[in-house]
């Protein structure tokens, strides 16, 4: 019997190729979108699965409260290590201190490359369970050792045996390669740890780190732990929550809370708001999941609508089958097998579409998703997916078609009743509601990105490059390099700073100033800069003056940004003094010489943080900022700069970043979401239109006789076109009325996540409505005009 169902289904589809193409095409598109989104979600959820002890690993986080604002982050002070090892050791299987992911020059036989990696304690490879390809897992045992990722080992040594070879780090010290580990795959934390070196080595080579050993206020380090099997994250957190507060009085006023942030939450639930975990990327997993379900639903609706619209054609068959003894459930089975075949077929096409699009999608979404050919779970869930889609799309037509009474349809008097079209209309409304809501959502995402992009940033990011100067080689060379660069015609101004233009690397508290409110706990973004900083960046001085090399006293001068003045509550700031409580009193106070325009250093969606720019008298710079000559091309400028650079630092690779592209990267995440939702919206509309197109062709066919009669009575083509379009337009307008409040509600909620956000204006909704109506009219017109142009004699004769 089943074979028979399949045979009939197959012939039916084959004999109605146009209909089948629309059905399979629409479904395939919908399924492809759902599959791609499914793969994307799977990738998001499988983040950090490379680490076999994912469930047991955590990073130690700290929350501190300044003036009632709780900020949470991974930065912890060094003494915390001793405190946890001494008092809570039995909670941890491993406890690993780590640096940030930092850049180092690795040199071997005159070949120098710049790589990022971590300085970690000895147990790191064991905790992360790195796959050792060569050498030993306990590779950080010795002070002067380095473990390399496979790709870096290859880049440095090629075919040569790396183990036992000596590398020079930053032209400063030598380390020996003890192990090569498999590259950590892209969708995992630590995937940019291209080398691991000893934590103790870092301490030994950096004075400030040695000093930090007992500084509870110096939150500059990371700590990772693996908890023992007999405890839980919550239990450990409860135990260590107040460890810092109890041990250190000085920082207790900020109420430091120490807690474990489990590895399984790092990627998807990494946001904290006032000390509480508050979601993160997981919201996009949900968002795209919902989009996927809706797009599939749209495609299923097409299937339902087209099947039932064809009901008059299939009615006869139902009648015959019933009269020769078919039961209703047998007919239901038959129609379901038919939809099963269509869905199966669409699935195959969808797989092809996915294979064709996967590369492009990976580029867009910044992923490295590959098609899971060998994954049994994928195929199993695909099967469930197919059956589910077949049931959803096939059940309504099956129930509807199988309900016909044989005597009605065989007499030839069968006419779908007055309300037979109603469910179909409801489904079309549903489709367009989803589409219109998608359109509105996409416009708002795009607009919000534009809104943030057009925000004044407080400096001129065009034609500005930054060169990292982490290497020891740069020490004391700033003045020389500045005059060298300026003597070329490639650079018109240059400065150095302790953090990149687009980021804040240091926050400080513990200042005193005239009129400081009692108990005020300030938190300032701190940047050490050379005197030309404001000039080279093109920052505007709004009050007072810039640094000047003319005044020797400027070595103790600072600039504040506008927000800082407001934040600190200083009236007439210029000429006032700031005392740094962190000093022992040996340093003179800092003199405020000017106020600069706010400059966006963090998220373009956040308010600018109160910042202080301090004359860099200790040589703390980490970046050179070069303003390029605008009168010649960037590539010419870069070539000249590289020449000068190589002259002075022949061993170092020439690295630089354009500040505008660094700034642009801040939009990457939102832009990806904008692009993806744009694509999915376009597909949703396309699928809806495909269904509408099919539906109009059936309606036009059904009304052939009516159209013929009307034309004989004198209706023009335009009349007929209007008559056919009006019905569908009505449905779309109803959809708009449903979609607008929903979209408004959802998107308003989305915008609230961004403190700097656009206002929802009426034209966005009007545009979406207009767009949807245009699309409808165009789609319907294809068929309507064809029907209106047909010769009435023909259509009336066939009666």
């Amino acid at each position, binding site marked *: *019997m089943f074979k*028979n169902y399949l*045979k*009939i289904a197959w*012939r*039916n589809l084959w*004999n109605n190729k146009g209909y089948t193409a629309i059905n399979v095409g629409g479904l395939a598109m919908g399924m492809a979108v759902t599959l791609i989104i499914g793969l994307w979600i799977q990738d998001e959820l499988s983040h950090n699965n490379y680490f076999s002890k994912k469930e047991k690993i955590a990073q130690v986080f700290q929350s501190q409260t300044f003036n009632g604002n709780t900020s949470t982050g991974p930065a912890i002070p060094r003494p915390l290590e001793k405190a946890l090892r001494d008092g809570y050791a039995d909670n941890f299987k491993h406890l690993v201190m780590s640096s940030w992911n930092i850049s180092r020059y690795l040199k071997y036989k005159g070949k120098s490359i710049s790589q990022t990696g971590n300085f970690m304690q000895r147990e790191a490879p064991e905790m992360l369970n790195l796959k050792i390809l060569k050498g030993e897992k306990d590779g950080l045992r010795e002070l002067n050792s380095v473990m390399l990722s496979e790709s870096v080992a290859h880049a440095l040594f090629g075919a040569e045996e790396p183990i036992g070879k000596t590398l020079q780090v930053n032209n400063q010290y030598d380390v020996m390669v003890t192990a090569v580990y498999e590259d950590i795959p892209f969708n995992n934390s630590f995937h940019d740890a291209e080398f691991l070196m000893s934590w103790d080595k870092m301490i030994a080579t950096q004075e400030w780190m040695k000093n930090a050993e007992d500084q509870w206020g110096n939150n500059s380090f990371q700590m990772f732990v693996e908890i023992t099997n007999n405890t839980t994250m919550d239990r450990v957190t409860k135990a260590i929550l107040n460890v810092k507060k109890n041990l250190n009085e000085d920082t207790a006023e900020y109420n430091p809370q120490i807690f474990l942030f489990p590895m399984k939450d790092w990627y998807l639930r990494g946001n904290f708001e006032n000390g509480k975990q508050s979601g993160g990327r997981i919201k996009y997993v949900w968002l795209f999941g919902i989009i996927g379900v809706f797009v599939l639903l749209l495609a299923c609706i097409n299937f339902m609508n087209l099947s039932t619209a064809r009901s008059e054609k299939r009615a*006869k*068959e139902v*009648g*015959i*089958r*019933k*009269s*020769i*003894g*078919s*039961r209703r459930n*047998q007919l239901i089975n038959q129609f379901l097998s038919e939809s099963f075949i269509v869905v199966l077929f669409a699935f195959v096409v969808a797989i092809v579409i996915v294979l064709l699009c996967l590369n492009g999608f990976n580029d867009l979404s910044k992923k490295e998703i590959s098609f899971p050919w060998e994954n049994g779970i994928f195929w199993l869930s695909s099967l469930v997916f197919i059956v589910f889609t077949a049931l959803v799309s096939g059940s309504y037509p099956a129930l509807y078609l199988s309900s016909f*009474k*044989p*005597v009605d349809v*065989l*007499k*030839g008097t069968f006419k779908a009743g007055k309300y037979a079209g109603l469910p179909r209309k409801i489904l079309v409304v549903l489709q367009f509601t989803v589409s219109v809501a998608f359109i509105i959502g996409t416009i708002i995402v795009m607009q919000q990105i534009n809104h943030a992009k057009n925000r004044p940033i407080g400096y001129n990011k065009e034609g500005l490059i930054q060169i990292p100067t982490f290497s020891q080689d740069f020490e004391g060379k700033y003045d020389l390099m500045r005059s060298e660069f300026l003597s070329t015609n490639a650079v018109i101004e240059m400065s150095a700073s302790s953090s990149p233009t687009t980021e804040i690397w240091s926050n400080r508290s513990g200042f005193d100033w005239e009129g400081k409110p009692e108990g005020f706990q300030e938190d300032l973004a701190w940047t050490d800069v050379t005197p030309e900083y404001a000039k080279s960046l093109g920052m505007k001085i709004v009050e007072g003056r810039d640094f000047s090399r003319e005044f020797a006293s400027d070595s103790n001068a600072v600039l504040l940004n506008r927000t800082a003045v407001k934040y600190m509550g200083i009236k007439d700031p210029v000429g006032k003094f700031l005392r740094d409580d962190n000093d022992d009193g040996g340093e003179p106070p800092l003199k405020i010489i000017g106020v600069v325009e706010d400059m966006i250093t963090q998220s373009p969606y956040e308010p600018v943080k109160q910042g202080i720019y301090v004359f860099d008298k200790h040589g703390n710079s980490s970046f050179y900022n070069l303003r390029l000559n605008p009168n010649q091309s960037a590539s010419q400028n870069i070539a000249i700069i590289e020449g000068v650079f190589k002259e002075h630092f022949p061993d170092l690779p020439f690295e630089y970043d354009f500040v505008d592209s660094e700034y642009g990267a801040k939009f990457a995440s939102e832009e990806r979401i904008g692009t993806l939702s744009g694509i999915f919206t376009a597909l949703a509309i396309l699928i809806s239109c495909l269904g509408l197109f099919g539906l109009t062709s059936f309606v036009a066919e059904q009304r052939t006789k009516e159209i013929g009669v009307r034309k004989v009575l004198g209706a023009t083509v335009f009349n007929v076109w209007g008559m056919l379009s009006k019905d569908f337009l009505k449905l779309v307008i109803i959809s708009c009325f449903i979609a607008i409040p929903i979209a408004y509600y959802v998107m308003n909620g989305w915008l609230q996540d961004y403190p700097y956000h656009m206002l929802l204006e009426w034209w966005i909704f009007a545009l979406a409505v207009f767009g949807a109506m245009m699309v409808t009219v165009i789609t319907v017109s294809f068929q309507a005009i064809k029907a209106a142009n047909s010769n009435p004699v023909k259509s009336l004769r066939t009666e």
Partner: protein
Amino acid sequence: MLLQLNNIFKWVNSGGQRVFLLKDINLTVEEGEFISVMGPSGSGKSTLLNVIGMLDNFDEGKYCFMDEPVHTLKEKHRANLYKQYIGFVFQSYHLLDDLTVQENLEMPLLYKKVRNSERKSLVADTLDRFNLVGKKDLFPTQLSGGQQQLVGVARALISSPKLILADEPTGNLNSKQGEEIMELFKQLNEDGVTIIQVTHSEKNATFGSRIINLLDGRKL
């Protein structure tokens, strides 16, 4: 006695008025009869046939088919009953266009859940009996009207029904084809199948053993 209709009424409400399609029909059909139902258009011939075939309901009266009171049966039982005992032949053949001749014949057996081997042999026998072997793989649209009706009759007969209901079986055929079909019916009747046909043609009516005349839903 094969079936018996007692005081059958069927009506529709149209514009507040009750329009009778069948009015007080009483009819007894014995096994082996060949009845022709005649009457002008709209006199209720097809309706009567559909009522007898249980495809259509009636509003009043009693209907017994092989001692089963049809009027009290549930839809499902009724379907089982006609599936087993009744074969239909239609004026416009009503073959399934997507199926070949052979598959059209097989269809009722599939619905009756006849086993595969038995089905195959029944289909082969029937093809043989109606001289359709050479056309078994053709689709209905590739056949002439007479051939299509032949398939229709063959399909009605394949599950060996006791009763054949034919609604103007020759209405769409030319006179020669029509005559062949009527000859076939006569032959079947002689083999013991009960037949009720609706016809406009006096000539065709003469093939039967009894004629029932209808006018405005009444038996004359």
